[in-house]
């Protein structure tokens, strides 16, 4: 009963929302009145690679688009694997692998328009790929030559944010600015199941809903926040959190690149059309460790990880391409060659990445001159120069 009245109250408060909702959302809302009901998982491609239709999320794709998505998935995984290896070789200080989450990131990333803006966590390498951010830029941060450093406005891809959830507020503020500019862009804020517990995420939901900001909250529920399962973060499916804030929430198969593409495209269009925020929960799995410093054998069973292997995002698309005859052997061979080239470029790029000059410490602390920073820089430079052979002591 309580849930029903909440739904009614929301419709009153935000009359613009229900008009444009696909029927699935009203179904999802009605399932909220039955707390034990299994949440619907929006899926367009089964783990076996069978294309299925969803009445609310139709998606037409050309063979070329499908191959292109497959290429993204494969190259992103290859890049990620190279980065893990480079960390093992001592070339990177740390790496946060996206293994298993490629479809969630590529699907949502490819749903964005050029003018849309992404606010990532520190694991959105696949989104960065879709935004055409050079992978070597991402690696600079994990090598320790900078804290990010790319120009966020060049590709509309913000810097990685490590304090979890903080970027959801930046995304919301940016989206509020879009509204003020009367632009038709939208923003996508990435976060995870762990971050969903952060106050900043709740505050972002509040600000986004009361200001009707064009932002899509894209939660990759990869089941684990380092060692803590999602049950430590929530009693209800995360996408249902949205209803308490008065905007739609949907759960999508995060290992299905087509569903992620269709749902995110809908969500971004919903937001950009003046209907306010959407929460997308991409239900996926972190196949690897939290980072290269983590040891998941201490807290989760191998059987669980194995059970997700059969839902792999890449193998299901490959199966589909193959049995539908949408890609031939030459395509796969060419992609393999491209993947090798990418690996080579990444390895060489990282190994040849120079350490910055130590005076980087003082660069960019402020945008305008600051007497203390200037003084300390001069002290440092004089100290460094006092060593025999000058500054390079």
């Amino acid at each position: 009963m309580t849930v029903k009245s909440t739904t009614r109250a929301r419709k009153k408060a935000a009359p613009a929302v229900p008009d444009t909702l696909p029927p699935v959302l009203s179904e999802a809302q009605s399932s909220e009145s039955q707390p034990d009901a299994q949440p619907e998982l929006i899926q367009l491609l089964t783990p076996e690679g069978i294309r299925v239709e969803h009445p609310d999320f139709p998606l037409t794709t050309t063979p070329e688009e499908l191959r292109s998505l497959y290429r993204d998935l494969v190259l992103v995984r290859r890049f990620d694997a190279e980065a893990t290896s480079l960390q093992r070789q001592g070339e990177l200080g740390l790496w946060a692998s996206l293994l298993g989450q490629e479809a969630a990131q590529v699907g949502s990333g490819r749903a964005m328009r050029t003018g849309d803006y992404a606010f990532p966590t520190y694991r959105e390498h696949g989104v960065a790929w879709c935004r055409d951010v050079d992978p070597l830029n991402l690696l600079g941060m994990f090598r320790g030559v900078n804290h990010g450093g790319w120009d966020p406005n060049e590709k509309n891809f913000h810097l990685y944010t490590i304090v979890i959830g903080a970027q959801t507020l930046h995304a919301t503020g940016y989206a509020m600015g879009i509204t003020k500019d009367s632009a038709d862009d939208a923003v996508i804020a990435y976060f995870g199941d762990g971050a969903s517990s952060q106050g900043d995420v709740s505050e972002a939901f509040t600000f986004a809903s009361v200001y009707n900001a064009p932002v899509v909250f894209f939660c990759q529920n990869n089941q684990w926040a380092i060692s803590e399962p999602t049950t430590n973060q929530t009693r209800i499916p995360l996408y249902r959190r949205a209803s308490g804030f008065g905007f739609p929430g949907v759960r999508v198969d995060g290992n299905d690149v087509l569903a992620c593409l269709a749902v995110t495209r809908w969500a971004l269009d919903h937001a950009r059309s003046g209907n306010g925020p959407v929460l997308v929960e991409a239900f996926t799995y972190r196949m690897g460790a939290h980072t290269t410093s983590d040891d998941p054998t201490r807290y989760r069973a191998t059987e669980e990880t194995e059970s997700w292997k059969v839902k792999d995002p890449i193998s299901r698309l490959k199966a589909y391409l193959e049995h539908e005859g949408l890609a031939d052997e030459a395509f796969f061979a060419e992609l393999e060659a491209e993947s090798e080239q990418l690996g080579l470029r990444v390895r060489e790029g990282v190994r040849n990445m120079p350490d910055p000059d130590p005076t980087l410490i003082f660069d960019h602390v402020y945008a305008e001159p600051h007497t203390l920073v200037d003084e300390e820089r001069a002290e440092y430079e004089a100290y460094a120069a006092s060593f025999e052979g000058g500054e390079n002591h």
Partner: protein
Amino acid sequence: MAGQLSIAKALNEALRKSLENDPKTLLMGEDIGKLGGVFRITDGLQKDFGEDRVIDTPLAESGIVGTAIGLALRGYRPVVEIQFDGFVYPAFDQIVSQLAKMHARALGHVKMPVTVRIPFAGGIGAVEHHSESHEAYFAHTAGLRVVTPSNAHDAHWMLRQAIASDDPVIFLEPKRRYWDKGEVGDSADLGLHSARVVRPGADATLIAYGPMVKVCQEAAAAAEEDGRRLEVVDLRSISPIDFATVEESVKRTGRAIVVHEAPVFMGLGSELAARITERCFYHLEAPVLRVGGYHAPYPPSRVEESYLPDLDRVLDAVDRALAF
């Protein structure tokens, strides 16, 4: 600016001018719209500039600062009001880890022209969390600029300069002085980060900022009756500090006493004492002394007068300094 203005009105006029001069300037905060803020600093501004530019926000400080960062990324110039000093801590991550560091971590590709206005310090008989002096936390964070005016002229011009700055500025407003009146000149006579000698003297230098400048001026006036000529330096800027002005003064007087409401331990006075010792060692006739709050939570208002530095505590320190 016509005639005498209160600090509150001088701030209000500064916000108005900033809104007029730059369409990208926005005000955000709790109750700043129809109410005009709990101290009425934004009085009338929403009526004149609209709800789109003078924004009543949800009651969530992290949300206010976090969305201000996003608006700055979109090209806006937000001026945020934190309702009371003790309410800024929920926004600490957004200020210290996000706002302060964004320019550096982006290697200068993005700017963060965000001003965070905070009515700070005590002396108004408030309940707890309404009288905090937390300037040291912010001054300790690279990437932030921290300033505080002590009079109407500086309140007006320093706020305009803070809003115009491309760096984040923590703008601390001495709330117990909001109703003090003063002449506001037609232009800024100093840069945002310059200190000002507000009273010349020769026997010792009192160094203060914000609400304590008035206490020090009163102490200097009282000391003059005893034939002691105290110089008073209003720092105005807490980060960066205008050490050149401090150094020049202390080298002349040979004695320095730093006065602030914040606890003495690890307060601005500690940094000033260290720097003065390094720069003025051979000119000092006495150790640098500090007058400030105690290492205790800000007390209930019935005893706050015993916590806050006042004329007598300042003069007591002057006695000790001159006894060396």
